[in-house]
């Protein structure tokens, strides 16, 4: 052992301690931070850690009313799926519905009551307590009611159904106000009106897509966002390939190919606003070719005399051969169906068009028949249509507000500041209202103008119910129940209304303490007048089993006999569409369409929806302008070129997307983006084409003729890169999407076995 020098020794000690220190720190840094196991104080009965619990409730992302099942783990909602028991959704759900989770867990939710601190337009709010907020509102309501000026109170809600709608009715009636309005941008006023004209009743029929064999859709994007897309998709799938040896065929007639157009067997572009003319042209063909043999044949012949094939072809731009072919197939198919809506109805002649479509159904004799158009029974509970505000009603409201006739506006969920054209001046009108109260869960454009915000629960945290409209052919309804405990200091809309009612001393007429009680009372009534089968057990059993199943329905069906309303045949006819702006200055027709992802803009704050490629273009995060390739080439525009779309009422700027399936004189833009506020995912992204629409209306209903604005395209010379997933959308002969020719197959016969050989199927060996 050599003698260690002092210096050496110090060196060794030094090295050793550095090593020890480093080793110590090494373990310290790689150590896992402690995690906690937080038990319940009292164990809940209905869920256990590690085991998923499913709650059935109702989707509120659009008005279709799909039943949903929400998967929860440890008290947190994890996934939304369709409720298999529910007749509308049958276990399926669209993307928007599934994104409901991100409404619940949205980081931009309002977490508690707020009151405005600055002038309108600023965004400074301060936190207040519920008591402060509620009493401020209730005091004002009391004052007005006591003064008999209850009618100066307006409740403007998104379209809600069921007992919440009834509660609104009661509440407003007690306050003495007529101004209870539900406002949805895409509410099909024209369709209701056309049905009233044709069938004499203001309900939506049930379109039996499932059993249809030939479908003519006039502008209705029934698979995308029209009425009840999930249910229509179910029917579509079944009609296409769900039946042995029968394959339903689908034809879509619209100036811009929608998702339904892509799914259809045939897409036909008729000039904007002439879909009704085409329908009557088909009807004329049915009459003249003797497909229709009813007693009123002569009346029809007389009414349709101007709609000869050649005339119609000239007006619509659809070839005569196509018209006769469509009409022949429509007439000869065993169960054929014509539906209309969407873009075809968003013209000044919308109701005429839809009446014409109904006439087709009448002439082919599918009313009340399987695979055709079925009539729904009265819904078991309240639906919101009668209170739905048309564009004209909203203008009236704005006028009243401007004239100082509205003193309190209570907003619930709806966002007219975003979904009304700037030309309507709605936002300016709102500033005349002394007190605006918003019950919205999010800081949307309209809520940003509110003085007091009493944020409500999202639909996954609150009680409610829904009676799908249109129904599914039999009385049905579903209760929506809270699936998680509330995340924030918010309250259910119903409970807020009930509390306001109590504050104002309306407990006699509105006796409930909570929305749950209100619902139960309401459903007790339904239970009592329901059929034998429903009433086998006590109400409590019924209630619990319904919550479990998520839906209730009766077997009874409505009588499907049908008589035509008075004077329909004589008045039939489709006027030429009117457009705002002259064709010389504004050569293009703007077609703003509802986006599948964002609906009317309400989905824009959901990150999943922002990242969901658009069905047709695969674009995400932003707006775009769809142009026909020929048009784009003529204007010297390529994908990504920024253009100004200018209407007589304003301009928006968006990049071009060259869209192969749009008429050359139509430009299309999706609705939904262009929020100025509405959370981090929606804010300042894209543009809102509604802004530049003219206040053109359909005269019968007063609904907005959103496809009736002419625009011009001004190139800006700037470019952006469109964010999208698609690289090149042509398959270059690589046979990726292969097509099958049924006629060829039946001839050869042997093709069956060759197909099998390429895909061996092994059998169970164990």
């Amino acid at each position, binding site marked *: 052992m050599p003698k260690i020098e002092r210096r050496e020794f110090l060196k060794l000690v030094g090295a050793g301690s550095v090593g020890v220190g480093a080793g110590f720190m090494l373990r310290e840094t790689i150590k896992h931070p402690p995690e906690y196991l937080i038990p319940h104080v009292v164990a809940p009965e209905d869920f256990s850690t590690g085991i998923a619990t499913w709650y059935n409730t109702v989707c509120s992302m659009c008005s279709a009313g799909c039943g949903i099942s929400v998967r929860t783990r440890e008290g947190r909602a994890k996934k939304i799926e369709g409720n298999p028991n529910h007749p509308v959704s049958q276990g399926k759900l669209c993307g928007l519905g599934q994104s409901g989770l991100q409404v619940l867990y949205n980081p931009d939710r309002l977490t508690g009551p707020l009151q405005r601190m600055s002038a309108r337009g600023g965004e400074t709010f301060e936190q207040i307590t519920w008591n402060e907020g509620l009493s401020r509102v209730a005091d004002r309501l009391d004052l007005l009611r006591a003064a008999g000026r209850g009618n100066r109170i307006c409740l403007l809600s998104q379209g809600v159904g069921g007992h919440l709608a009834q509660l609104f009715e009661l509440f407003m009636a007690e306050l003495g106000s007529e101004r209870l309005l539900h406002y949805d941008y895409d509410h099909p006023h024209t369709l209701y009106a056309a049905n009233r004209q044709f069938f004499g009743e203001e309900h939506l029929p049930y379109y039996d897509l499932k059993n249809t064999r030939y479908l003519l859709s006039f502008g209705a994007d029934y698979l995308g966002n029209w009425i009840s897309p999930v249910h229509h998709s179910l029917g579509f799938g079944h009609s296409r390939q769900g039946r042995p040896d029968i394959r339903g065929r689908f034809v879509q007639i619209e100036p811009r190919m929608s998702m339904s157009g892509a799914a259809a067997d045939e897409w036909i572009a008729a000039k904007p606003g002439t879909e009704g003319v085409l329908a009557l042209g088909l009807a004329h063909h049915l009459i003249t070719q003797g497909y229709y043999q009813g007693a009123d044949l002569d009346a029809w012949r007389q009414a349709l005399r101007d709609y000869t094939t050649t005339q119609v072809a000239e007006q619509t731009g659809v070839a005569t051969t196509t018209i006769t072919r469509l009409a022949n197939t429509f007439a000869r198919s065993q169960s054929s169906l014509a539906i209309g809506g969407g873009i075809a109805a968003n013209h000044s002649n919308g109701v005429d068009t839809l009446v014409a479509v109904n006439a087709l159904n009448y002439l082919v004799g599918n009313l009340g028949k399987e695979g055709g158009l079925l009539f729904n029974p009265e819904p078991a509970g309240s639906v919101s249509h009668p209170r739905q505000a048309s564009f004209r009603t909203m203008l009236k409201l704005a006028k009243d507000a401007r004239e100082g006739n509205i003193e309190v506006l209570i907003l619930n969920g709806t966002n007219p500041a975003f979904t009304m054209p700037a030309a309507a001046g709605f936002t300016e009108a709102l500033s005349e209202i002394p007190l605006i109260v918003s019950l919205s869960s999010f800081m949307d454009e309209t809520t940003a103008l509110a003085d007091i915000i009493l944020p409500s629960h999202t639909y996954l945290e609150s009680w409610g119910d829904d009676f799908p409209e249109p129904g599914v052919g039999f009385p049905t309804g579903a209760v929506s129940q809270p699936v998680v405990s509330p995340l924030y200091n918010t309250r259910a809309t119903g409970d807020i209304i009930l509390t306001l009612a109590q504050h104002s001393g309306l407990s006699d007429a509105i006796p409930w303490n909570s929305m749950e009680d209100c619902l139960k009372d309401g459903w007790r009534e339904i239970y009592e007048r329901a059929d034998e089968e429903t009433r086998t057990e006590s109400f409590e059993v019924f209630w619990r089993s319904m919550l479990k199943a998520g839906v209730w329905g009766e077997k009874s069906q409505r009588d499907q006999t049908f008589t035509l309303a008075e004077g329909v045949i004589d008045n039939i006819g489709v006027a030429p569409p009117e457009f705002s702006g002259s064709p010389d200055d504004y050569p293009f027709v703007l077609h703003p369409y509802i986006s599948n992802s964002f609906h009317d803009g309400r989905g824009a704050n959901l990150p999943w929806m922002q990242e969901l490629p658009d069905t047709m273009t*695969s674009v995400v995060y932003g707006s775009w302008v769809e142009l026909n390739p020929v048009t784009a080439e003529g204007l010297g525009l390529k994908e990504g070129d920024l253009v100004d779309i200018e209407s007589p009422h304003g301009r928006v700027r968006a990049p071009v997307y060259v869209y192969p399936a749009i008429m050359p004189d139509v430009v299309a833009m999706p609705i939904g983006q262009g929020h100025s506020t509405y959370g981090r995912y929606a804010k300042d992204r894209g543009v809102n084409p509604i802004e530049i629409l003219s206040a053109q209306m359909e005269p019968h209903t007063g609904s907005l003729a959103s496809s009736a604005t002419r625009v011009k395209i001004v190139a800006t010379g700037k470019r952006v890169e469109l964010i999208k*997933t*698609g*690289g*090149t*959308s042509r398959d*270059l002969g*690589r046979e990726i999407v292969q097509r099958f020719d049924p006629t060829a197959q039946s001839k050869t016969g042997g093709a069956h076995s060759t197909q099998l050989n390429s895909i061996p199927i092994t059998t169970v060996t164990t």
Partner: protein
Amino acid sequence: MQAETNDLQYADVNNDIVRSIVETGPRYYVALGIAGGVALLCFFFPWFYQLYFGIGAAGLNHPGVWGTYLASFIFWIGLSHSGTLLSCVLHLTNSSWRKAMYRSAEAMTLFSLMVAATFVMVHVGRPWFIHWALPYANQMEMWPNFRSPLLFDVMAIATYLTGSSIFIYMGSIPDFAAVRDRTTGWRNTMYTLLSLGWRGTDREWHRLHWAYTFLAVLIIPLAVSVHSIVSWDFAMSLVPALHQTIFAPYFVVGAIYSGTAGIVTVMFVLRRYMNFEQYITKVHFDNLGKLLLLLSLIWTYINMVELFTAWYSDTSTEHEALSYKLFGYYAWLYWEMIAFCAVAPLLCISGRFRTSMVPMLILSIAINIGMYTERFLIVGTSLSRQYLPDSWGVYVPSLVEMSIILGSFALFTTLFLIFVKIFPSVSIYEVKETMDTPTVTSNAEPIAPPEGSPA
């Protein structure tokens, strides 16, 4: 070549080369400082940034999941190919013109391999788990997947790195002994260890000769296999334009090609800045020029074959890959590559060109730029256009990647600068072998280390 070295004596060789190690001018330190600084700033700093934030720091995307990192990896592996391989081939064929340049060529191999191996670390998403690609017993009982071309890579590169470092070291042992005898202090300690007690006995020379020869025999097929395997990383995939049988020879030729050009560059620098004019002569450049010409012709031929097969195949995928390469987003790079790698080397037909230093330097750099482009194009164009047109996309490198590429050259330079101060960058004993026996007695005193260096 004898003509130029005739006036040299054995002792001069020792003196010159030992001096190149021991005597260090300020220019060296400036060069080292700049190279090291750039390596640190442009390579390691961005790399750490990338480690922290993820591969997203690079411009990679879907479908361009591979980008310049892999291109750089192949480039550096390719650059490594001529050093040891050429050295081995020339050793076995007993070419005497090899002897003055093989040491630095081998060093180039070694360092470009090291840089290439670093690029593997830069390239993968989770380099902190890179050891999972090595076969070692562990409690998970998990072993690497020996069916993967990437694992062939791991094995081949590990072997190649081991082989070429052993090869350069073995060849340097007698020189280390020579340097040992002429140095003092810490250098003497270092060279004592490095030379392992070499005395130059007949026995040692004999054993060294045989060992060296066996190594050369082993390393030639290894080197060929290394780049074949690298090519299989691509060719084993189904990607159009990558799934090709010609890839292995294409890569091997390309590798030797770019490596030879790299040698020209290194030779130029050594000759100019290490004062090795007497050792690295015009003869070397002449021979290397001929070699470049030959390799460029083979390379061009294979390139044409590749294009032709793609065109002749008459499938949508191959046609698309071909037309994208020639006329697509990266087309300018393709034509740049053709200009630099297929057209420019034709200048080597001229003997005057081959023996002019600066033009040869410019040519060699151009070839390597072209070869880097080639690697980038192999990765970039083919991944951009695969089977499903809807998934096509374009990959553009990010600043981080550019910086890391620049930094990798600085890293290589740094390593090389350190090398010239440790290894005799020209082989002392092999140069002597090409000379006549000495006629003048030498001065064999130790050369004093420069002022200030530690004793």
